[in-house]
């Protein structure tokens, strides 16, 4: 991953800063609790939620186990439908491919649909370096881009900004990128959305090239699927002449029918809606191969690895590749709520970020080595995950890697990493713990509530200094919050 934020401090330091920022914490708390409650209601409406969850997990596991097969099928289907498929082993390759494709059109600007994959590879920066302007069109992404900010949530990237801050950003920045904010712009969300509509409309209508990601790709048919709410996705996917989609290789599913699972679980788990306002599905250039003027005349799919195959090589860690980016795990996480999204130092914040970033990027940096400790292991993330990723299990696995070293795959090559030097991991763990214990009352209450429902079965003790568990499986530990465990196990030695 090239988009490691430069100079990013390790998680504990970054989080401590965030914990002190009262505005951020208030925004975040309000937001996460609102979505969390609504989501629970949306999920309860489906009597077969657990079965949909099990099916979603099984589809993803099956696909990952035969990833080469399904990617080749996808490639054949997309090609047959008039699209062109490119493969990128890393961020540099992906950025080069996209830059060349845009250059070949002769255009100097692109409109973009919110896409985590392109953020992960730092595509906007790469395009900018090549003299190409990339305009984010999702409202939250626009707020982040205009504010020279970083996203802090998967679904609501500007969750850390309140309406007054957004108004200020629009007032000062919109004019520099295109149509300025209307005079006397207030801070009513309706007014702000209207300002964004006007600002972006001129860009949509003239755009010749668009860049998107995708939520799913269907191997059998070559169909691409994008879920969204605002209509900016539809604008980007249907108006420009050239469409370039950059998609992680783990987003493939075998059959069109498999979408029946995720069309039910993703919107409910993500925005707590029965269905999001817009979902677009397209297959290459369509039945007329682009001749009917319905949609782009050229479609390019860039399949992105960038650490995913390394993650796939880890039998415990690979389950992180099942993630459908619903963001439910962020909204229930007591650590995310206190620390905020920026503390995770990547485009993937929260519990999923804590297990994905250190696998995609390796645990070489301070931030990546400390991410597996950014958790109380309360298990709430696993409970809500619509594809049943056992995030606590992967966290423990990664903690062990950091603390004790062991075999990992980096850029396709199997290597052995050494235990973290100079007790780096130990320090990270301690700092993370102290951070979490700073306001013990609130955390403990939240945690107890969550742990009632947990089904966490750690097989080894977390953290360094627990080498003795190597030689034997740990008996099922008592169901207690991290805080109590910490106080009992480590309290005397901190």
């Amino acid at each position, binding site marked *: 991953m090239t988009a490691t934020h430069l100079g990013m401090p390790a998680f504990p330091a970054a989080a401590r800063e965030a914990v002190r920022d009262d505005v951020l914490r208030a925004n975040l708390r309000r937001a996460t609790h609102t979505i969390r409650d609504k989501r629970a209601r949306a999920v309860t*409406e489906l009597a*077969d939620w657990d079965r949909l969850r099990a099916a979603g997990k099984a589809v993803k596991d099956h696909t990952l186990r*035969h990833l080469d097969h399904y990617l080749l099928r996808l490639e054949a289907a997309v090609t047959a439908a008039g699209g062109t498929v490119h493969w990128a082993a890393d961020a540099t390759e992906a950025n080069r491919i996209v830059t060349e494709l845009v250059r070949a059109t002769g255009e100097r600007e692109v409109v973009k649909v919110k896409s985590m994959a392109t953020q992960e590879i730092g595509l906007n920066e790469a395009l900018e370096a090549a003299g190409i302007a990339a305009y984010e069109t999702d409202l939250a992404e626009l707020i982040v881009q205009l504010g020279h900010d970083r996203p802090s949530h998967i679904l609501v990237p500007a969750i850390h900004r309140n309406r007054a801050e957004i108004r200020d950003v629009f007032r000062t920045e919109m004019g520099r990128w295109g149509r300025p904010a209307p005079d006397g712009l207030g801070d009513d969300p309706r007014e702000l959305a209207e300002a964004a509509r006007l600002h972006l409309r001129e860009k949509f209508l003239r755009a010749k090239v668009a860049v998107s990601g995708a939520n799913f790709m269907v191997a059998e048919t070559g169909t691409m699927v994008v879920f969204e709410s605002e209509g900016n996705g539809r604008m980007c996917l249907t108006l420009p002449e050239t469409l370039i989609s950059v998609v992680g290789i783990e987003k493939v599913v075998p059959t069109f029918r498999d979408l029946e699972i995720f069309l039910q679980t993703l919107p409910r788990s993500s925005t707590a809606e029965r269905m999001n306002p817009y979902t677009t599905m397209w297959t290459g250039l369509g039945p007329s191969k682009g001749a009917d003027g319905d949609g782009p005349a050229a479609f390019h799919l860039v399949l992105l690895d960038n650490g995913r195959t390394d993650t796939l090589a880890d039998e415990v860690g690979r389950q992180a590749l099942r993630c459908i980016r619903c963001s439910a795990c962020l909204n229930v996480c007591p650590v995310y709520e206190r620390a905020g999204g920026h503390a995770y130092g990547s485009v993937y914040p929260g519990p999923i970020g804590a297990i994905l970033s250190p696998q995609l990027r390796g645990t070489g940096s301070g931030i990546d080595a400390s991410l597996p400790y950014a958790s109380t292991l309360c298990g709430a993330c696993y409970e809500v995950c619509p594809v049943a990723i056992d995030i606590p299990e992967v966290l423990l696995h990664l903690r062990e890697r950091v603390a004790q070293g062991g075999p990992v795959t980096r850029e396709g090559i199997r290597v052995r990493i050494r235990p973290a030097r100079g007790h780096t991991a130990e320090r990270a763990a301690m700092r993370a713990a102290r951070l979490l214990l700073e306001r013990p009352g609130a955390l403990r209450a939240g945690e107890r509530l969550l742990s009632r429902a947990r089904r966490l079965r750690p097989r080894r003790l977390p953290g360094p200094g627990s080498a003795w568990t190597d030689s034997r499986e740990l008996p099922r530990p008592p169901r207690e919050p991290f805080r109590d465990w910490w106080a009992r196990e480590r309290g005397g030695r901190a």
Partner: protein
Amino acid sequence: MSGRDRVLGRIRRALGEPGAGGAGTGRAPVEAAAGEDGIPRDYLRVHGDRTPAESADLLAAHLREYRAKVHRTDEDGLAPLLARLLAARGARTVLVPPGLPPSWLDGAQAVRVEDRADSTPYALDAVDSVVTGCALAVAETGTIVLDGGPDQGRRRITLIPDHHICVVRVPGQLVDSVPQALERLDPTRPLTWISGPSATSDIELDRVEGVHGPRTLEVVLIDAPAQ
């Protein structure tokens, strides 16, 4: 080595060679694992048991919940209703897909604008309203699905104008659930699933209807025999 070979090589090293099967190393051949029994599909095909009339009511309720306006009529009432809705909106121009039954707009005052392959986005932006049919609607989720059929037209015509009126025949075009919808759809066609008007919750999670897509979505259910 090409990016393709590199990525595929890494996948195979991570998983073992495909098709080796047998004891020990290697993966079972994909065919064996991909069968119906490989994935537990014991989730429900449909949630609840409804008469066609109840399904239509549910569709209407769910559409309304997401702030679409819903109207009910029959075949004879359609043209007068559409004329009224366009007049109430103050629409001077209405975009029509090539295969829209002309009788639908009998009596409408708005000037008809036909979509052509060379209609620019700017031209479409100048039109007040658009009227289309649909491929089907899903009651459980309050969704209409467009597949670019002759009475629906290109995807852009239901996107750029600020007012979309969509006609759904019930019970013929109505299914109860998402699984039933996918069974009836052709994935090679461009598909647009629409559940209420464009919306955002990006500012303090306050839901605001209408960002880039049509800010007003009106759905007309016509009771008509199945097609």
